[in-house]
């Protein structure tokens, strides 16, 4: 076996295992600054790996998952960036130009899997919950991780390294932009389904107005969610107090003295 193939397989395996990050406390094991240590070992230049990791980490900084907005895939981008940097010896910037299109292509694949495949696994979990098979619900969670987060990423990194960046970039360019945009549009709307399912449980006529208050506070006054929760807690306190007083007042006269 030639060394390129061996390295591609090892990089794939590294990717499969390093995403254990999300199983072990979202501990940032998969960030470039850490993964580069292992990439350095695979590529036979540990010191260079660590140095590239620092540069790539700084390039990816700010790439954080907040809500539904998702950054380019830092895991595959970081691993391939470091690997290309050591393989070509042309420095971090050149390596980044090779790694970025690949990370963008994988983000597309990842979004598609997260959008369609994971919810199917989640539906299996729903059915197990209905039957009271709690252990199987847990298994679906792990299955989702392996089938969507770990394996595809590992295969993708391995193949990308073996085939090289130009091939992957050609694939990315061959995908029409409307498909890429469409996936992102769908991803932006998808949480609405989650909220709608949640509202099935919580929404009743007499409390609908509080949904509107929360929505208006955010939309017009740009109050952060924490602020909305503080207003909500105060409002709940006031209303519950009033209702208790009213209930007590209708039962006895003692409240009247307090009021005047």
């Amino acid at each position, binding site marked *: 076996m030639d060394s390129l193939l061996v390295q591609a397989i090892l990089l794939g395996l590294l990717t499969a295992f390093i995403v254990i990050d*999300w*199983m072990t406390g*979202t*501990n*940032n*094991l998969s*960030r470039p*600054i*850490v993964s580069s240590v292992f990439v350095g070992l695979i590529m036979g230049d540990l010191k260079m790996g*660590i140095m590239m*990791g*620092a*540069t790539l980490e700084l390039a990816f*900084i700010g790439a*954080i998952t907040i*809500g*539904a907005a998702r950054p380019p895939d830092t895991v595959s981008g970081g691993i391939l960036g470091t690997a290309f940097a050591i393989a070509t010896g042309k420095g971090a910037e050149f390596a980044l130009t090779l790694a970025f299109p690949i990370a963008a292509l994988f983000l597309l694949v990842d979004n598609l899997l997260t*959008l369609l495949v994971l*919810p199917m*696994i*989640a539906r299996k979990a729903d059915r197990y*919950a209905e*039957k*009271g098979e*709690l*252990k199987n*619900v*847990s298994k679906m*969670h*792990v299955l*989702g*991780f392996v089938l969507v987060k770990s394996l595809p990423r590992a295969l993708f990194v391995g193949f990308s390294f073996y085939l090289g960046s130009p091939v992957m970039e050609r694939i990315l360019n061959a995908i029409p932009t*409307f498909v890429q*945009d469409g996936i992102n549009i*769908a991803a*932006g*709307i998808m*949480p*609405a389904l*989650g909220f709608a*399912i*949640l*509202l*099935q449980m919580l929404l009743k006529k007499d*409390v609908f107005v*509080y949904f*509107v*208050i929360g929505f*208006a506070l*955010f*939309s017009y006054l740009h*109050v952060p*969610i*924490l602020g909305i*929760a503080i*207003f*909500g807690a105060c*409002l*709940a306190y006031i209303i519950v107090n009033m209702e*208790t007083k009213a209930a007590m007042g209708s039962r006895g006269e003692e409240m009247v003295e307090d009021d005047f």
Partner: protein
Amino acid sequence: MTSSGKALTKDDLTKICIRSCALEASWNFERQQHMGFAFAMMPALEKIYSGNEEEKQKAAQRHLEFFNTAPPLSTFIMGIVASMEEENAKNPDDFDTSTITSIKTALMGPLAGIGDSMFWGTLLVIGIGVGASLAKEGNILGPFLFLLIFNVPNFLLRYFGVMQGYNFGTKLLENIESSGVMKTLTHAASILGLMVIGGMSGSMVSIKVAGSIGQGDEATKIQSIIDGILPNLLSVLCVFLIYWMLKKGFKTTYVLFGIFIFGIIAAFFGFLTT
């Protein structure tokens, strides 16, 4: 006292803390960390509802609802939820389980805000600052310190969070039980929960209209006209359209694929943008 379920011990809470580490492993756009939350709660639910199959099923379904928060702070919510599930097993007649969902929802949004700025906004940046300056020299201490700076607070908070959450919940519920104001708690929780979902419907659902009216310098973006009337109008319309469809009996699977196809079509004809 119909249930044969047992009270949770410190070991059970520690188990929740350990399993909370997998919270994000099956993150998805639709319900986000829901399977992770259920995964963390499962052994506790098995214990609380042992011998009560029906309530166990309901509890498992309850925790497969939408959930998303900052993972390091998630265990505080799990602790409170554990105490509430226990209360529900003890007094199934008095307890309204929608309170559990309300409390979960009311806490996840604010804690996400606090946790994100604490961990991703502060500790991660400090960690990278310290770690990268060492790693640039090829020093392996860099990545090591990076992990340490982020994870010592991460795991400490997870542990204390579940313990504090459980104690807080248990004490609160004891007071409420003795003064007989369980209904009040349900009402207050639903007010708080709905306000938070209202806010999150605006902040987390994103949909933008493409295109503009007029030409050249006169052109006004259609989206900015909509924002001028009611910002996030389309987001909240999406939520209620889907809510209505589910009420009408549409299966969530069809809605899911519907949204996907709609996204592709919208991008093809260019009436929505990202």
